[in-house]
Every structure is written in C-alpha cells, then in structure tokens.
C-alpha cells in the first residue's frame, strides 16, 4: 500500500539500517545452514548411535532400535513436522490426516504397479494426490471452525477409509491392502534394499535409509524455512487472534487453507515413502482413524510449536510402541502409559515432552553454571 519511491541518496541512518539488515541476513543464512547441517548429522549418526552402539556396548537387542524401525520413524517425523504446522502454528486440530498419508500411500503403490515403478515418481504421484485431497477437504472443512472442523475431518477420514475398504475394494485390495507394489530402482541403477558401497552397515545399512534420510533432511530444511517465512508469523497470528489478523487485511481463510494443504503435502511425502519402504499398502496402517489419532498423539506428545518436538515425538512413539511394548512388566501397558503422558502434556506441558526436556536442561544448566551464563 506504500507507493513511495526511496530517495536516491541514503541518509546515514538508512545506511546503518541496511548494514544491520545485511548482518541479520547473514545470521539467518547461517542459522539455516546450521539447521541443515544438524539435520544431516542427525540422520547419519542416528543408526550408529541407536542401533550399532548399543549392541557394541552389550545392550540386549530386544531393547535396541533396529534399522527398519529407524527408517519408519523418520517417515513419521516428516508427517509430524507438517502436522505441527497445522496444529502447533495455525491452531487447527484435524482428526482426519490419515486421509493424506493413506491416499498418498495407495496412489504411490498403485502407480508403481500400473504405470512406472520409479521410487521418485511414486513419491511425486503420492504427494500430488495428497495435495489435491487436502485442497478439496480443506476447502470444505474450513468453512466451519473449531470443533466442527475436527468433526468434519474425522467424518471425512472415516468416509475415505470405508470407501477404500469397499466399494473401491477391487482396486485397492480391500481389507487385505494393496499387495501389487513394485518398487523399482532409483534412477534406474540403485536398488533401494541393497547396501551402500564403501559405507559400513553400522552407519547406513541400505540405500533405502539414505533415500528416506534425504527426504527427512529436506523436510526439516523446508519446514524451517516455512516457519521463518511470513507464513510462520501469519499462521501464529491467526492462532492467537484470528479476528485481528483478518482486520489487518489478511485473508485468514486462504492462509488456513494453505496451512492445511502444506501439512497435507508433508503427509503425502511421508505416506508415499511408507509404501516405498514397506512395498505393501495395508489399509489399517494407512487410512484407519487410528493413524489420525496417532499423528495427533505423536505431535502433541513430542511438542507442538517447535521444529524438533514432532521429530522427537515420532521417535518416542515408535520406540515405545515397538520396543517398550515387548519389555517385561511395562510392555503390555505401553499404550496406557503413552495415553497418560499425553493427558499430562495437554493439561500442563504445552511444549510437549521435548519442551519439558529442554526446560529441565535449562534449569540444570542454570543451577550448574550459576553466574557464568
């Protein structure tokens, strides 16, 4: 709305402003680089730290992570980052996000069987379908806010589940899932299941992990950029005071829809990767409302409103569900324990378990560091 032309000569104050802006700009670039580097390091070191090291140290294998679980965790982490954008930042609670994960999974699988088995093409197809679904469902569901939005997304989620179960059963395999997935080689040469040459299996055990890991790093970097874009500020403003956001001239509805679609895109990438990883599309783990419930728990438990919280949540959930569930004494109660922790988080720990850890770390550092801080 300001059509003023900048004066040709800059005042000293303006010059100072520009240089500090430049400083901020380089700082920011540095921040983003740091995040990218940390993400890459995290992805590369995780297998060693969580799988190989424990076995080297003699930890019983039933308590340790295994490679396939790690890969699955990264896939859920991608899903959770996108979901956090919708819930943590925009404040919209969707109980139907399994739709985007699931339709992407099915599309990727069916695409691989019927058209082209290139993994990258599978991901693109799945994501495209998820984005389309998110556009349609978001457009309809966002007409009403608050609880109606939650109920509408829940209803849609169930509807898609039952539609894929049967009447579309002939195409989707119904309750047996889609078994015709054909995951081809990456770029025509790399078999995803094979091990990476020159790299010990303890660090990266297969190309699949690298493939998923790369997607995860990209998701983190893109996610970080989105949070630092005007969207990060606008979406938070929408959550804090929707009316005010509207009254500074922002088209709140379109921003909400974009947030929904972006989160759907992340879910789509994750769902497609799921099919690539599993080579199979079971209906219960893709479209069932339990998936929608799981992503809510993962994201909230991990910590909404931060970049790492959802990733941590995915790790925590996967570990508890798959490893702790097999442990003596507490094993059978894993879901109950998670449920209780979830309730505690909702009641009093708004930054999630990750937020609680960060808070404790700070308190401990304060106590130990004293005056030095």
């Amino acid at each position, binding site marked *: 709305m*300001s059509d003023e032309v900048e004066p040709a000569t800059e005042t000293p104050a303006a010059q100072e402003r520009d240089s500090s802006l430049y400083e901020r700009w380089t700082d920011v670039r540095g921040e983003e680089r740091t995040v990218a580097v940390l993400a890459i390091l995290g992805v590369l070191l995780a297998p060693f730290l969580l799988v190989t090291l424990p076995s080297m140290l003699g930890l019983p294998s039933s308590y340790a992570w295994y490679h396939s679980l790690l890969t699955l965790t990264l896939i859920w982490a991608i899903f959770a980052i996108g979901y956090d954008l919708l819930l943590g930042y925009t404040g919209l609670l969707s109980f139907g996000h399994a739709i985007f994960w699931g339709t992407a999974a099915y599309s990727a699988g069916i695409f691989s069987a019927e058209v082209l088995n290139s993994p990258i093409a599978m991901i693109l197809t799945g994501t495209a379908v998820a984005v389309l679904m998110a556009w349609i469902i978001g457009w309809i569901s966002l007409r009403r806010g608050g609880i109606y939005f939650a109920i509408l997304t829940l209803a849609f989620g169930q509807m898609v589940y039952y539609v894929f179960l049967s009447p579309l059963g002939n195409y989707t395999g119904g309750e047996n899932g889609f078994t015709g997935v054909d995951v081809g080689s990456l770029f025509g040469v790399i078999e995803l299941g094979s091990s990476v040459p020159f790299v010990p299996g303890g660090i990266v055990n297969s190309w699949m992990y690298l493939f998923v890991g790369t997607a995860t790093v990209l998701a983190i970097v893109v996610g970080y950029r989105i949070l630092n*874009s005007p969207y990060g500020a606008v979406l938070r403003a929408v959550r804090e005071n929707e009316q005010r956001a509207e009254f500074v001239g922002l088209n709140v509805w379109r921003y909400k829809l974009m947030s929904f679609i972006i989160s759907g895109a992340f879910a789509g990438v994750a769902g497609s990767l799921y099919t690539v990883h599993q080579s199979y599309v079971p209906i219960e783990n893709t479209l069932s409302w339990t998936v929608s419930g799981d992503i809510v728990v993962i994201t909230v438990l991990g910590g909404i409103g931060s970049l790492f919280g959802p990733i941590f949540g995915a790790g925590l959930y996967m570990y508890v569900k798959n490893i702790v569930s097999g442990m003596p004494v507490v094993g059978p109660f894993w879901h109950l324990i998670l449920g209780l922790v979830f309730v505690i988080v909702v009641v009093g720990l708004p930054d999630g378990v990750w937020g609680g850890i960060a808070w404790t770390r700070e308190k401990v550092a304060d106590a130990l560091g004293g005056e030095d801080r």
Partner: protein
Amino acid sequence: MSTILETRDLVKQFGGLTATDHVNLSLEEGELMSLIGPNGAGKSTLINLITRKLQETSGDILFEGDSIVGLEPHEVVQRGVGKSFQTASIFPELTVEENANIASFGAEHGAFRFNFLRHRDSYPEVAERTRDVLDAVELLPQKDVTATDLPYGDKRRLEIGIALASEPSLLLMDEPTAGMSPEETQETVELIERVQEEMGLTILLVEHDMEIVFSISDRIAVLHQGEIIARGTPDEVQGDPDVQEAYLGGVEL
C-alpha cells in the same frame, strides 16, 4: 473535501430486534466524527456493519464512492478502512515487533501471498514499516517484549499502532479509552489527535467519555435505538432537546 464514507438507509435486524434503523451517515474526508448514544443504541453494530463483520439486512455502505457491502472484512481493510477494537486486540504471545510485523505484512503484501518459502527478513520494506509504526506509537524501545506482558495502556497503543500500520484513510475506533486512567486517557487522546494530523486520517470515534467527545470532535452523531436522532457540531448537539431526553438518567452532557 469529499465524502469518504456514506451509509444509505442502512438496516440491521436480529430476529425481532432492529439494531440499526435506516441510518444515513456521511463522513467528510479529514474530519473526526464521534458516534455517541446510550448503551444498546447500536453503536457497535454500526461499526461492525461498516467493517463487514456483520451482514446488513438492507441498505448500502459506500467507501470513497464505491459500495463495500459485498466485501469480506480483510478486503475492506485493504481498501483503506482500519479498526481499533474495544479491548486491546493484539497477538498476546508474540513480541511487540512481531505484532507490528503482522500488520505490516498485511499492508505491504496484501491479503494473501504464496511466499512460504521466502525468508521473512528478505522484505526490508516490511521491516521499515514496522519500525515506523512502533515509532509513531512510541513503543520501539519495547519491541522485544512479549505483548501480553505490556501494561494495559501500552497494549492499547500497540493496538492503535497495528490499526495504523496499513495507512488507512478511515479509522474506526471503538471506545479507545475504555478502562484507562486519566493520564493514559490524556496520552491516548493526544496520540489520536497527533496521528490524525500527521496522517490526514478521517476518524469515526465511538466514545462514552463526553469530555473527550466534545473537545476533539469536528462533528457528532447521536444514536438512539438504532436511529440517528441528531447530528452536527458539538455546540449544536449539546443544545438539542432530543439528545438531552435520550440521555435522561444516563451520562450527563
């Protein structure tokens, strides 16, 4: 001077209640008009109709000559109508600077953009507008304070700043001094006057504090049970018998 805002036969009915009854109001560019009336007269309803938060039952509203009844609230803001709310409507968990940034984004970028992959700091014009806004309301030193931690008077000023960020031609202010101490009220009035002069704003002010109303208004419109029962300069309105009757038992003039 041209007419910047005009309502024509504006009616709003809620079920059986007529909150706005064939209101014909016009504002000249650059003037400060106060809208007064006893509680329940329909002042807030009228404001909400102008900002499009409410849909009118019938009638028309013209801003700068064009009808705005088909627009969404954010579109009206983009056209140049700003609103300052009755309660300090800010973004509580964001910092003062972030608050102003949001308003600046709305002003610089319009209602919507696909820029979710561009970094927020790559828009120097937005940063500059933010700085100017905070400077105008004298909150620049507190730019890193979380908005909810501000004292109420500062929250109000931030709120006014947010409303001004879009450089509106018309500013609607809904009881800006409600709940303020005498010093805060004085500061706010000075702010309003200064801002109006510096930015050439037209202001429609809803107020209960008659001292303020009669000291800073160019014209006053009196609303009673949804109708305008008197309008004119402060002197004209003060002497109007209808107005005095409407206020019997209410606020003294």
